[in-house]
């Protein structure tokens, strides 16, 4: 099947069954969506930087030098920061930490949220009411303020940030999954499974889950964008990733006080963050449009 796959895409045969058994027209439409492709290209670029990182850059992102806050020139393309580190090397290496922390937090939130959403949507009842109240409470207290309070108590290790954001995302994702499960559970195939005498867990995970994967995927990409937003914001106020990490937000945190005479120390990391979040959201937008069409 996979050998047939490539020519099929090029000759525009949208209704063939793909190797994953999913809807191949989705993949076909995604590959034609300019929004999606631009997003994927930028994301792949930053993933490449995160993997290869300082092995390719002419300077080491951590070694300090004599030249402090030097203008961009032929040796230091993006200039140097306030303790003489090469900004270009740090921008390239800065992709790594956020691309570890944000996806892990999102995966944690998506897995937990899907579990809770399936159970709550399938069984409904008291649990349903409790979850709704928890969501209201979480929406009332801004993530940043919640995170600062927790960070004061538990410190700011990467694990803390991942768990914190994952936990905050869990009820939000659970709400989306719940809504889809509510309409899904009334469909004939669920009734059929019930009549066959299947147990609840089997119906939830084997029957319903594959059918609600599309909204979960959309939710995952959208949340990934929020996770990057949240990690970056926390790092900027000093409660996220910590120095000496070359993380972009940490660079801005360390240098925003010198913005008026050393623009290169903050502009390049800022543009990098912007390109990454916009890329992830273009991907989410592309997927949403294709799935809704």
């Amino acid at each position, binding site marked *: 099947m996979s050998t047939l796959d490539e020519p099929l895409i090029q000759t525009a045969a949208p209704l063939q069954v793909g190797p994953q058994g999913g809807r191949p027209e989705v993949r076909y439409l995604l590959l034609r969506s300019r*929004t999606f492709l631009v997003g994927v290209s930028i994301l792949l670029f930053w993933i490449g930087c995160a993997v290869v990182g300082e092995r390719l850059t002419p300077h080491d992102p951590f070694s300090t030098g004599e030249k402090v806050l030097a203008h961009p020139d032929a040796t230091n393309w993006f200039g140097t920061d306030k303790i003489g580190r090469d900004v270009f090397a740090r921008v390239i290496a800065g992709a790594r930490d956020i691309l570890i922390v944000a996806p892990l937090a999102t995966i944690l939130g998506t897995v937990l949220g899907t579990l809770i959403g399936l159970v709550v949507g399938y069984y409904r009842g008291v649990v349903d009411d409790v979850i709704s109240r928890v969501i209201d409470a979480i929406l009332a207290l801004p993530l940043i303020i919640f995170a600062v309070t927790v960070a*004061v108590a538990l410190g700011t290790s990467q694990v803390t940030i991942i768990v914190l954001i994952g936990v905050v995302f869990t009820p939000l994702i659970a709400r989306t999954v719940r809504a889809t499960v509510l309409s899904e559970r009334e469909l004939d195939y669920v009734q059929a499974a019930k009549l066959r005498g299947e147990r609840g867990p089997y119906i939830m995970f084997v029957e319903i889950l594959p059918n609600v994967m599309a909204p979960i995927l959309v939710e995952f990409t959208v949340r990934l964008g929020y996770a990057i937003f949240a990690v970056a914001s926390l790092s900027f106020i000093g409660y996220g990733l910590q120095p000496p990490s070359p993380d972009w937000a940490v660079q801005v945190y360390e240098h925003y006080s010198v913005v008026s005479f050393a623009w290169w120390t903050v502009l390049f990391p800022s543009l990098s963050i912007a390109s990454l979040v916009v890329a992830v959201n273009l991907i989410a937008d592309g997927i949403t449009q294709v799935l809704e069409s």
Partner: protein
Amino acid sequence: MLAQLLPGDIGRAILGPLADQASVDQLNHELGVDRPWYEQYWSWITAALQGDLGTSYALQQPVATIVGHALWNSFKLAAVAFLIVVPLGIAGGVISALRYGRLSDRVISVGGISATVVPEFVSGIVLILVLTIWLHVLPLSADAGPGASALSQVHHLILPALPLVFVLFGYIARMARAGTIEALDSDYTRTATLKGLSQAVVIRRHVLRNALLPTISVIATQVGYLIGGLVVIETLFNYQGIGLLILNAARAKDFPLLAGGILVIGCVYLVVTLVADLLYGVLNPRIRYAAE
């Protein structure tokens, strides 16, 4: 209150690492933080209900005064942001809907989404560089200084408000666009067009009124987000609002101030949500008549 349970020696945080243990213990006793947490929480909550939020450890002033002052500063900043973004977002959404599927629709939609997802400090840094340092259009300091005129204060607040505008624009425009598309599709719009009203009148009288309802509710739900955004913006511009106050209180382990700040934010959120619900009822005759 989570804040009361947080570890960390408060007396040590105030007196510094060089103070001897006896005076740290003495201060902890005076502040009452050596009592069990439930006792502290009870005395805090009973006093708070009577309007007494206690005294800040670090600043030695009543929490209510400090929080009130910071809240007013944040309110000014948020007001400037809303004054800019609400008309802009609604206009963007309506234009986008009227040109559904065309290039300008895509540009506004994708631009709106992109502006929404960029963290405030990122757009803030770029705006500072472009508008203040390179073009000298707006002042860098968010605070106009004591005794400044209202106009000058607004002038100083535009730059810090813009990143908030960016983030909120996408949400508001998206809701206004969806509302307008739905209204344009409806039977009453078709009737209005068929009875010969000009397009401008149809849009003003029939489309806009209905399109704006969901927009108002989304504006209210953004208040929770907005407070989070204020923490970041007030840090970036070193503006003495409620966000920076909570952040500094957390850093200094100044628990009465932290608890007071968070309590006030919760209250603000409740009040704004209530006002939005009431406003929604006033604007929407279906809800108004249903209640009578």
